[in-house]
């Protein structure tokens, strides 16, 4: 999985906002709001070539959460991005 080209993410007031720029703005005209965990996953997804299990492991290595919670967070976040057509 990978975040498609053409998205910009910025932190403001403790939360994270992402929008599409350049050619991507023609096909995506929305705003994605995320918390810190979401932004962390977003950054990992930007690198590309990541699987769901890799994301879960990454979350576990940085945040003090149990595997079940981490998996639920990853699945929720990934399905949200997928439904909006942000990942490929």
């Amino acid at each position, binding site marked *: 999985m990978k975040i498609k080209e053409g998205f*910009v993410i*910025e932190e*403001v*007031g403790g*939360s994270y*906002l*992402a*929008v*599409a*720029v*350049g*050619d991507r*703005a*023609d096909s995506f*005209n929305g*705003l994605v*709001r995320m918390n810190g965990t979401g932004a962390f996953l977003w950054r990992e997804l930007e690198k590309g070539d990541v699987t769901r299990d890799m994301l879960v492991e990454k979350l576990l290595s940085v945040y003090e959460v149990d595997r079940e919670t981490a998996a639920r967070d990853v699945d929720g976040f990934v399905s949200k991005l997928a439904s909006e057509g942000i990942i490929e």
Partner: protein
Amino acid sequence: MEQSKSLNIEDELKKHKYYATNTVGTSMQPLFKTHRDMVIIKAVEDGIKKYDVVLYPHKHGNYILHRVIKIKGDICYIRGDNTFYLERVSVSDIIGVMVAFNRKGKRSDTDKFSYRLYSRIWVFIYPLRYALHGINIFVRKVYRRIFKRKKT
């Protein structure tokens, strides 16, 4: 810069305090170019100051993001960085203030010295920009006339 009203930015700002969008239009060039950059808007909390880039609904159904160049009482005089007309907007109609942006992939906050300096210089040189614009239009007119005469 314009943004379609269908997104209902007012509700977004009320609910989340912050809103972000990519830039649309030519009126804020050279700072922003269509679809190249991202702006972050904050709901109005601490009032509006001169040089602020503010967001307000326009009568044609869009939102406009232009710069405040003068405040008199509760009226803001607003102009796009690349336009030559003044808009009079009531302070109460302004829904947001730009607090940060991402230009060509680089983040800037509007409280940063370099940005504040840029804002002041840009507003200060308006008479020069206006004069150059006038000369440009005049030269084009003259050229067109000469060109036409030669053709006929």
